[in-house]
């Protein structure tokens, strides 16, 4: 192709070229879409199984002393036994002799980069949060991902106060993240400098989730204890 001819054609693409471009883009998009769907469908069963295993491990981690777990779903007024796929579920953890060790609750909320999914353990006896685990995060590596690595930050969740008011209606003090080094009350999370937004997001996620779930669990605690 001669240079001047090429320039001309680049300036005003002919309709034949337009069709060629369109054909190439549509063709490649269709091929790519097909490949992605194929892989997604092919890997889905295994990914789901691995996720379930990871979740089980995480539950054992956030409720120390657990050896058996049971899934409960909230149907609007009470808890009923359910499987993993039901909506509004929590995981009750029991020790060898069947005593309720705590309840693991999944929660999620907007982080800095994307939705953060976490799991936390709640001990109804102590009225404390006793464990915390990040299930899914796309936070900035080296900064935001400190929420799952920073030892000082994770230490917040060994005993985080979520005591209920006397009528069991609500959590007295909502969990909140404060600036690093300024934690004064047992319901505050000591934040991370350099991961301000991500650590605040964790506070919000836990705060909001405990506001709904802790009263629900306490109203139905006997049922869970009896493992029904």
């Amino acid at each position: 192709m001669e240079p001047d001819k090429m320039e001309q054609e680049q300036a005003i693409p002919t309709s034949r070229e337009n069709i060629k471009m369109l054909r190439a883009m549509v063709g490649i998009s269709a091929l790519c879409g097909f490949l992605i769907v194929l892989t997604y469908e092919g890997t889905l069963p295994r990914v789901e199984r691995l996720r379930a295993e990871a979740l089980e491990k995480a539950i054992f981690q956030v409720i120390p002393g657990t050896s058996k777990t049971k899934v409960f779903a909230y149907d609007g007024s009470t808890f009923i036994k359910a499987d993993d796929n039901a909506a509004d579920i929590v995981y009750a953890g029991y020790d060898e002799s069947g005593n309720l060790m705590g309840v693991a609750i999944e929660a999620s909320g907007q982080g800095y980069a994307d939705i953060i999914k976490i799991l936390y353990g709640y001990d109804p006896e102590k009225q404390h949060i006793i464990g915390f685990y990040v299930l899914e995060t796309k936070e900035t590596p080296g900064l935001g991902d400190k929420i799952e690595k920073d030892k000082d930050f994770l230490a917040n969740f060994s005993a985080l106060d979520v005591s209920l008011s006397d009528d069991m209606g609500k959590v007295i003090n909502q969990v909140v993240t404060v600036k690093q080094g300024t934690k004064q009350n047992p319901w505050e999370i000591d934040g991370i400098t350099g991961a301000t937004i991500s650590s605040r997001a964790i506070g919000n996620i836990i705060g909001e989730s405990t506001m709904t779930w802790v009263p629900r669990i306490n109203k139905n605690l006997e049922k869970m204890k009896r493992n029904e």
Partner: protein
Amino acid sequence: MSEVSSHSAQTKIPPSSTDEFIKGLWRENPVFVQVLGMCPVLAVSNTAENALAMGLATAFVLLMSNILVSSLQNFIPKQVRIASYILIIATFVTITDYTIQAISVELHKSLGAFISLIVVNCLILSRAEAFASKNTVGKSILDALGMGAGFVFALFCLGAVREVMGNGTFFGLSLFPEGFQSWIVMILPAGGFFTLAAWLLIFNLLQQKKSKQ
């Protein structure tokens, strides 16, 4: 840079197929010579395992996109070539992402956001544009294998050094007796720069020595 050197090689003797492979591993190593794709090189080379996994994932995407780009070179008009290449690369990155998830959740978690960032790894786009779009499928496969191996090699060089010095382990196995004070900075981002600088120094010294001979 890569184009210049491959061009000069072509004028002397037509490159053999082994040459096509070896150049990526050594003479035109994507990390140590071309200094391409520094984001994953610095970020995911904190342990040997991460480095190897990231390198292999990138090499896989490179290989597949090179194959597709070179076989579609007559089908893609040049006005939309970059968009097409990115589309192809993004597809294989997504496929890699799902595959790694299916292999291990832990591995997927530790590589995290960097898998999706392979899309913008300039190494892959530069090989598509500078090589695969102008050469046969066979040659492109060799080029991708060579460049991919070079990338894995470079990442492993960094990852191994950083893990041994920063963590006292190699592939998770403890190397030193108890009481070894590890050099934490090496697994932090700054350590990536130190290690890369040291390797670049070694490579340049070697090349200088060779050109003097």
